[in-house]
C-alpha cells in the first residue's frame, strides 16, 4: 500500500513538477503583450512638457518602434500642453516620468519637490533673443531701453544674465504663447526657442536675414534644458525601470536622428491626433535643431549625462537672481550617468 501510495506520490510529484515546468515554459514562451505585463505592473506613464511636437520625437519613436517594449516597459504617453505641467503630474503621481527644463527642475527641487534627473537630454540651451533689424538692433548694446518680451520665471534667468553681461536696461514684458506681439511690433526683442518660436517667425514671413538673433548659449549661458525626471521614490523602487526608460528614450532619439523622415511621420501622427495647428516643415526644423542641442557638435558629454560643474553653474545663476535660496545637492539631483553607459 505504502509502496503504491509512495509510487502515486512520487508520480504526482513528478507530474506536478512536469506540469509546473510546462506551465512555466508556456508562460515564458508567451509573446510579451501589454496585458500580460500590465498585470505585472510594468506600465509607466510619461508626460512631455508641451503639446506633441518634434521636441519629443525620441519618445514617440521609441514608443512606435518598440524600444520601450523591448526593455520590458509598457509606456503610455500622455498628451502634454499648457494645462498639464509635468511638475504637477509627477508630483501628484499622475505621471511616472516627465520632461522638464533643468532650471525648472532645480527650482522645484529647491522648493521641496522630490524630483530627480534620470537623464539629461538637451545638452545645450536653445533659448535665444530675436529682434528685427528694422528696429535698429544689430548688437546687444542696441537693446538698451527697448521693450523685451520674455517668458516667465526660469526662462528669464539666461536673458537677465545676458542683460547684466552687457549692462543693458530694458523693459521686460511677459510673453504669451504666440510671437504675435513681436511680429506686430509690440516689442523690439522677444525670447524664442531656436527650435520653435524662431522658426515660427520665419514661417510668418520674416526672412532670417531680416532678423538679429542672440543665441544665449553663444554668450556663455550654456544651460542644458530638457531632461527626464521622476520622483525619487519611483527611482529607488526600481532603478532599472528608470534606467531602461531613459535608455529606450535615448535609443529613440538616436533612431530619430538617423531616420528623420520616418521620425517626422511618427511625430505628425501624434500632431494630427492632437489636432494641432502646425505643419511638417515646422516639425522638420524642430527635429533638426533638437539634434543640434541633444548631440551638439564638438561636445564631449555623453547622451543622457549631466555634468556636475554645469549643474552648479546653472543653480548658481538661479540663486544669483534670487529664484532659489539654496542650491540642491547634485548627487541628490542626478544619479544615472554611469548606469546609463554601463554597457
Amino acid at each position, binding site marked *: 500500500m505504502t509502496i503504491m501510495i509512495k509510487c502515486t506520490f512520487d508520480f504526482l510529484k513528478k507530474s506536478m513538477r512536469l506540469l509546473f515546468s510546462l506551465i512555466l515554459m508556456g508562460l515564458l514562451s508567451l509573446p510579451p503583450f501589454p496585458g500580460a505585463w500590465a498585470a505585472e505592473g510594468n506600465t509607466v506613464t510619461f508626460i512631455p512638457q508641451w503639446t506633441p511636437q518634434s521636441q519629443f520625437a525620441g519618445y514617440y519613436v521609441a514608443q512606435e518602434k518598440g524600444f520601450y517594449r523591448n526593455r520590458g516597459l509598457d509606456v503610455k504617453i500622455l498628451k502634454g500642453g499648457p494645462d498639464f505641467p509635468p511638475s504637477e503630474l509627477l508630483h501628484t503621481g499622475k505621471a511616472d516620468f516627465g520632461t522638464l527644463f533643468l532650471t525648472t527642475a532645480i527650482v522645484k527641487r529647491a522648493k521641496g519637490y522630490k524630483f530627480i534627473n534620470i537623464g539629461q537630454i538637451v545638452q545645450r540651451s536653445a533659448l535665444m533673443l530675436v529682434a528685427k533689424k528694422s528696429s535698429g538692433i544689430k548688437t546687444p548694446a542696441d537693446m538698451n531701453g527697448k*521693450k523685451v518680451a520674455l517668458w516667465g520665471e526660469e526662462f528669464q534667468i539666461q536673458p537677465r544674465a545676458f542683460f547684466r553681461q552687457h549692462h543693458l536696461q530694458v523693459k521686460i*514684458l*511677459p*510673453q*504669451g504663447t*504666440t510671437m*504675435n*506681439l513681436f*511680429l*506686430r*511690433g*509690440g*516689442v523690439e526683442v522677444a525670447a524664442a526657442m531656436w527650435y520653435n518660436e524662431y522658426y515660427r517667425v*520665419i*514661417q*510668418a*514671413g520674416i*526672412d532670417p536675414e531680416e532678423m538679429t538673433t542672440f543665441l544665449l548659449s553663444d554668450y556663455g549661458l550654456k544651460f542644458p534644458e530638457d531632461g527626464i525626471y521622476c520622483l525619487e521614490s519611483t527611482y529607488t523602487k526600481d532603478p532599472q525601470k528608470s534606467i531602461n526608460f531613459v535608455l529606450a528614450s535615448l535609443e529613440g532619439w538616436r533612431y530619430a536622428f538617423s531616420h528623420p523622415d520616418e521620425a517626422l511621420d511618427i511625430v505628425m501622427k501624434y500632431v494630427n491626433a492632437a*489636432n*494641432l*495647428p*502646425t*505643419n*511638417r*516643415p*515646422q516639425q522638420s526644423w524642430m527635429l533638426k535643431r533638437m539634434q543640434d542641442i541633444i548631440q551638439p557638435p564638438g561636445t564631449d558629454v555623453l547622451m543622457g549625462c549631466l555634468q556636475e560643474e554645469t549643474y552648479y553653474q546653472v543653480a548658481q545663476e538661479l540663486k544669483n537672481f534670487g529664484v532659489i535660496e539654496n542650491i540642491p545637492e547634485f548627487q541628490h539631483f542626478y544619479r544615472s550617468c554611469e548606469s546609463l553607459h554601463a554597457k
Partner: protein
Amino acid sequence: MRNSSLATRLTIFILACTALIFIAALSYNYSASKATIMADAVEDAKNLALATGNKIEVTLQGVEKIPRVLADILDEQPARQEELLRLLNRALVHNPEIYGLGVFFEPFAFDPKQYYFGPYVYRHQKGVKVEFLGSDTYRYFFLDFYQIPRELQRPMWSEPYFDEGGGNIIMSTFSMPFYREKDGTREVLGIAGADISLMGLEKLVASAKIYESGYAFLISQNGRFLTHPDKNLIMRESMFSLAVSKNDPELRRIGRDMIRGGQGFVPVNDFSSGKKSWMYYTPLGHSGWTLGVIFPEEELFANVRRLSQRLILIGFIGLVFLGVVITLLSRSITKPLRTLAATTSALGHGDFSVTVPETGAKEIKQLAHSFNELGEQLTDYMEKRDFIRDTFGRYVTQEVVKRLLESEEALALGGETREVTLLFSDLRGFTALTAEMHPEQVITFLNRYLEKMIEILIDYRAVIDEIMGDGILAFFGAPEPLEDHPARAVACALTMQGAMEEINALNAADGLPHLEMGIAVNTGTVVVGNIGSEKRTKYSVVGADVNFASRIESYALGGQVLIGPATHWRVKDIIEVGEVVRAEMKGVPEPATLYEVRAILGPYNLRLKERQETLMPLAQSLPVHIYRIKDKIITGATGAAEITQLCDTAAVIRFAGELAAWEDVRLHLVDEQQNEKPGKIYGKVTAVEPGEGNFRTARIHFTSVPPESRTVIREALGA
C-alpha cells in the same frame, strides 16, 4: 525630290506653305486670345475680390463698430458694472455676427481692489451668458487680444485662433483700446473686444464661383490659411510653410507681398492639386488679412484651347482636302503632258502622223498645238527629205544615194581602185535624126527610150554615171561589190537591146523614127569615188578603161552589143559570140579584138533576136546620095552611088568617091531625077572594098532609118 511628280511637288509645297500660314495664324490667335483672356481674368479677379472684399469689409466693419462705441463710452467716463453689463448684453443681442463681447481693464483700473476685471458676454445654446474673465489661469493681460493693442495703442484684429471650446471653429477678436488721461499723458485703460467666428466669412469666401475648380481663400497677417477648400491647410499651413514643403521660393516671395498688403496677379501651382494656376490677391481693408483668388490655367484657357483644337482639326481636314484637290488638279493638268510624252515617244519612233488632243489649260493647249504642228512639220520635212532622196536617186543611183545617206564617210572626196565593168550605150545617128524635130518631141522621144534603159540598168544594179543626151554611161561593181559584174553588164546590155523593139514599136505608132542603139561593155580597173569638190561632187569613174570603153562604143553598130577583151575573157564561157571585130584605135599600138555578143547563157539566159542581116541583092539598084559625117557635121559627099544589096539593117553600095571604114554617113534615097526622097538614113561604114574602075563597094550598117525610108526599103525588099 528630283523625280517626284508635279502632283507631289505641288502638294508638298502648297501644303507646307498653307500649313505654315495656318500655324502662324493659329499661334497668333492663340496667344492673342490668351492675352485677352488673361486681361479679362485679371479684371474678373479684381471685381470678384472687390465684391467679396467689400462684403467682408461690411461684416468686419459692422463688428468693429461695437467695441469702438464701447471704447468711446468708456473713454468719456468710468463705467459702472450693471451699466456695462447691460450695454454688453444689448450690443450682443443686437449684433448676431458677434459671438462674444467683453471689456477688459488694466490691473486695478476698474476697481482698485480688483486686479482683473473682464466682464464678457457670449452666446450660449439658449441665450446669452455672462462671465467675469481674469484669473491666475486666465491672465488676459498677456493674451494677444489684449497685450498687442495695448502695447501698440491702436485697434486691431487678432491673429485668428481656434476656439477653446474644442470645436474647429476659427475665431478672431477685434480689440479697441480705451484710454484715460493721467498726468497729462494718455494711457490705456483697457480693451474692448468683440469675438467673431470666421465661419460666416468662410462661407462667404467659399461661395465665390470661379470657373470649375477655381476658388477664393483668405490668409491671416501671418500668412496662415484661414479658409481654403483643402481643410488640411486651414490654420496649419501658411504660404511660407507651403513654400518650404513644395520647395518653391517664389511662393514665399508672394506670401511676403501678400501679408504686407500687396496686390498682384501671379502664376502659381495650386496648393493642393499642384495644377498650373493664376492667383490674384488683394488686402482686405485694415484687418491685415489677404484675399486670394485662384484661377486654374487649364480652365482659364479651356475655351481658347478647345477653340484652338477645333481650329487645328478644321485646318487639318482642310489641308487634307486641299491636298486631294491639288493632286487631282495637277493630275488633270499633267494628263495631256503625259499623253504628249507618250506620243512624243511614238513620234521619235518615226510615226509623225500622231497627234495629241488640243485640250486643257491654255498653256497646255498651246503646247499640244505646237506639238501637232511639229508633227506636221516633221511629216513635211520627211516628205521633202524623201522627195530629195528620191529626186536625188533619180539623178544618182539609189545604191549610191543609200550609201551616201547612210554614212558620212561615203561623202568623203576621193576614190578607190576597183575592178568594174563599164557600159556605154548610144543611139545611132540620134542627133541627125532629131535635128528637124520639135524640142518637146525630142525630149519625149528621148525620155521614152531613156526611161526604159534606166529601168533596166537599175534592175541590174548598175550605177548610172552619166546620161549624155542619148548616150548612157554606167558601171557595175561599185560602190557595192558585185562578183559577176562582167556577166551582169553583158546581160544588161542584151536586155537593153531586147527592149529596143518595144520602144521602136511605140515610136512607129507615134510616127517617130526607128531607133538603133549600140552598146559597148568593157571591164577594167578604174578609180571610182566622189570626184569633184564639195560644192559639186559626182560619184564617178576615172581611168584608162573608161576611155577604152568609149572607144569600143564607136565601133558598136545599132542593135549590137560589143564587148572588150577583158570582158570577153571573163564571160567567154557563157556567151555566144557573133562578129569579132579587130579595131584599130588611135593611140593604141595593137588592134583590139572586140566581140559581138549574141546571147548569154547561165543564170541570165538572154538572146538577141535574130536580125535580118542577110543582104539581098537588089534586082534594081537604088540610087542614093551619100553624105559623109565627121563629128556630126556633114563634111562631104560621095559621087554617084547605088544600093546593090539591101537588108533591114545594112546595105552594100557601089559608089564613086571616098569613104572610110567606120565612118558615119547619111543616105538619101533619090528618084530617077536624082531628087532626094524624103527620109534620111544614117549609117556606119563597116567595110570598104575596091570595085571596078572608080567604083568601090562599101558595106554600110544602118544606124537610123526614118519611117519613109523604111517603107522604101521594105518595098525594095519586096516584103
